[in-house]
């Protein structure tokens, strides 16, 4: 029986990209349903009524939401090219750092990108602290997953894409080779890896999108 695998995503969502990487790395056949963030389909809303967001993975008619949860589901369902380590402590650490990436690293870098003056300075300092912790996690490893790309590389992969976009637009120095040599090297290894390198959304389109988002945020905060 043919399996039905569908991924609801937007062209730019870094969260949906995680699922694309996982599916591609495992060689799973799937159909993409492109959603418009401004006009989400009723179908998507039906599959993710709580958050109404992408990504949603549909497998044999059953929806799974939340990118990190989808990653674990994909890893448990299709065993080739294992993403999470076998060792319980290593698994716990991978989950811990993935959550840290979303809750702390992403938050601080985003704040630095959309704010100004003292708020921006503080956010940048915070981001540097957080990045330093990730730098330490890479010690002695090519990827966070060791010799091969794993769950944590995929979870942090947005760094390899969006940080360059943010730096280009804002002129800020967020993740440079002097302060974070290991992370900087990892960005390149990850970006150029087979499968990963074929999936990046258009750099130019991202620049346009985030310039607009930054202006929107700036306008909102200056009008209060």
């Amino acid at each position, binding site marked *: 029986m043919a399996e039905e695998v569908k991924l609801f995503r937007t062209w730019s969502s870094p969260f949906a990209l995680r699922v694309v990487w996982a599916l591609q790395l495992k060689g799973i056949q799937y159909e993409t349903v492109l959603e418009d963030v401004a006009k989400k389909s009723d179908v998507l809303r039906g599959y993710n009524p709580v958050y109404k967001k992408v990504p949603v993975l549909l497998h044999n008619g059953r929806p799974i939401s939340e990118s990190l949860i989808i990653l*674990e589901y994909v890893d448990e369902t299709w065993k080739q090219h294992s993403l999470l380590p076998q060792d319980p402590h290593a698994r716990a650490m991978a989950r811990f750092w993935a959550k840290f990436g979303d809750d702390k690293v992403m938050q601080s870098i985003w704040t630095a990108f959309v704010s100004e003056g003292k708020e921006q300075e503080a956010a940048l300092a915070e981001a540097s602290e957080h990045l330093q912790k990730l730098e330490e996690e890479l010690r002695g490893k090519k990827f966070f997953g060791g010799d091969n790309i794993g769950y944590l590389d995929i979870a942090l992969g947005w760094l390899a894409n969006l940080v360059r976009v943010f730096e280009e637009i804002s002129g800020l120095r967020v993740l440079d080779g002097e302060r974070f040599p290991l992370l900087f090297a990892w960005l390149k290894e990850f970006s150029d890896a087979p499968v990963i390198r074929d999936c990046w959304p258009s750099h130019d389109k991202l620049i346009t999108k985030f310039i607009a988002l930054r202006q929107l945020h700036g306008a909102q905060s200056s009008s209060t």
Partner: protein
Amino acid sequence: GEGRGREADRGWPSPFVMRPRIALNLKGVEYEFLEEKLGVKSDLLLRSNPVHKKIPVLLHAGRPVCESLIIVQYIDDAWPSSGPSILPSDPYDCATARFWAAYLDEKWFPAMSGIARAQGEEAKKAALDQVVEGLSLLEDAFGKISKGKPFFGGDTVGFLDIALGCFLGWLRVTEKMNGMKLLDEAKVPGLAKWAERFCAHDAVKGVMPETEKLAEFAKLIMAKFKAAAPPPQ
């Protein structure tokens, strides 16, 4: 296999601290419970969780594991042949349990703890409405997930039971302090009965705080919060 855990813990009021304790109890794993003093973080805690400096932290064979839901999954992975499986074996059921657990931590519990801190009646009502809506969603989820069995985990207490059940003490305190029934048998009958079963379970009984004690603790915290808050404009 064999193993002893050690837990560094500020203590009995924290719902997050309850989670690993229930998991360890389910697995029949012996552990040492190190209570932290309120307001003072020990060197051991700071060394074990340098990133967040928070409890709970599980120390097993000298290695720390942090974040309550991550610890529960670790316990399930580390003691696979002791006691029941905490995470469901089916990947889809697993994803469902993780989804609702994340919802609890990211949306529902912040709304509930927001009730006490809400400034003004409107803000309070908004927070309460969120909690009530969440309970309605969870009632629906319970029906679908338990499939007529006593717990979210089926016949045994599982991941989502632990994730939600740890908040029951604070839910009761919220009911008491606001003079309203949230776990209302008329509105959420499945959850109301589930809550009784959960609290009566052997793995839970000894670690679920008494509502009276929690209410006293809540008053203490509220007093501190009000004292520290800036004067109204």
